[in-house]
């Protein structure tokens, strides 16, 4: 276990921002889409984004960050900001993620895939965990303790970038939509 946070930082160093300063982006959430321009970005080094608390053997936790409110949802961003995240379960459990709380990520028709602690060893850059969020359309996480032993904490480590954006005028919007200006689409949710 000794190297887990060292691995997390290596993953963070290897992570590149999805867009650069001044880039145009099309933000797509589960309910809307709009054009923005990035005017500021900064890194978010690995940190504990969520601790769903103690969890008995062979149980699934409540979905974190719905009822617990803003104090428990450290993925939340300020207005006009979107985030680019990679993450992994820090303790030995399986996590299922929702964005926003009612929309499952990594969802097949009959199966929602989980992400285990071991992913930091198998996917050292955490590429397969990446997702984006818009403002405080918060992701929610369920923790599953599949073992026969209780856990005293279920912690999520997240890292990435936050991007502040500003609106674009109508003339620029027309240029983007006609293809005269490049634009990167940022999908901030799956579809319900």
């Amino acid at each position, binding site marked *: 276990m000794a190297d887990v946070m060292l691995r997390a930082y290596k993953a963070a160093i290897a992570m590149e921002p999805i867009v650069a300063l001044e880039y145009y982006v099309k933000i797509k959430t589960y309910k809307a889409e709009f054009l923005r321009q990035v005017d500021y970005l900064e890194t978010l080094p690995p940190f504990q984004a969520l*601790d769903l608390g103690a969890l008995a053997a062979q149980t699934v936790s409540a979905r974190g960050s719905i009822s617990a409110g803003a104090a428990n949802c450290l993925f939340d961003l300020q207005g006009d900001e979107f985030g680019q995240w990679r993450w992994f379960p820090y303790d030995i459990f399986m996590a299922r993620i929702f964005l926003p709380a009612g929309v499952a990520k990594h969802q097949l028709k009959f199966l929602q895939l989980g992400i285990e602690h071991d992913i930091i060893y198998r996917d050292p850059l955490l590429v397969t965990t990446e997702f984006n969020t818009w403002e405080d359309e918060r992701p929610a996480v369920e923790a599953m303790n599949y073992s026969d032993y209780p856990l005293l904490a279920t912690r999520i480590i997240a890292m990435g970038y936050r991007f502040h954006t500003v609106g674009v005028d109508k003339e620029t919007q027309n240029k983007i939509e006609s293809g005269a200006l490049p634009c990167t689409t940022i999908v901030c949710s799956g579809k319900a």
Partner: protein
Amino acid sequence: METDFERGVRRSGNVVNLPAPGGAAIAQAIFQVSNFAQQIGTKSFIPKKLLVRNNNGGNCWLSLGLGIPGVANMPPVRVLNMVDNIWQEFDLPTQEYFADLTAFADAIVVGSLDVMVEVEERG
């Protein structure tokens, strides 16, 4: 090559003296979990090295556990009299603690134990 200690994930507790007469009632914290109010996240730790000096306390058992009085949560280790007793990472189960780690000797008539633990701090 840098060591775990240099990376900052290994820390040592203080030298703690466990006096006679021993017993769970006088268990003492040998490593205190970091719980500063403004730290980000929950810290925990895993003992990686245990050094015990037996000061004429006679051969005895040393228990590691939680709380005062101590509640042992792994099998006690046998501490021989008048020698340095050392357990390293490969001798100790990976037991993670989210509260202060306490230790106590079983009944010893005289003498004392000096105990020091090195841990890997997580979180």
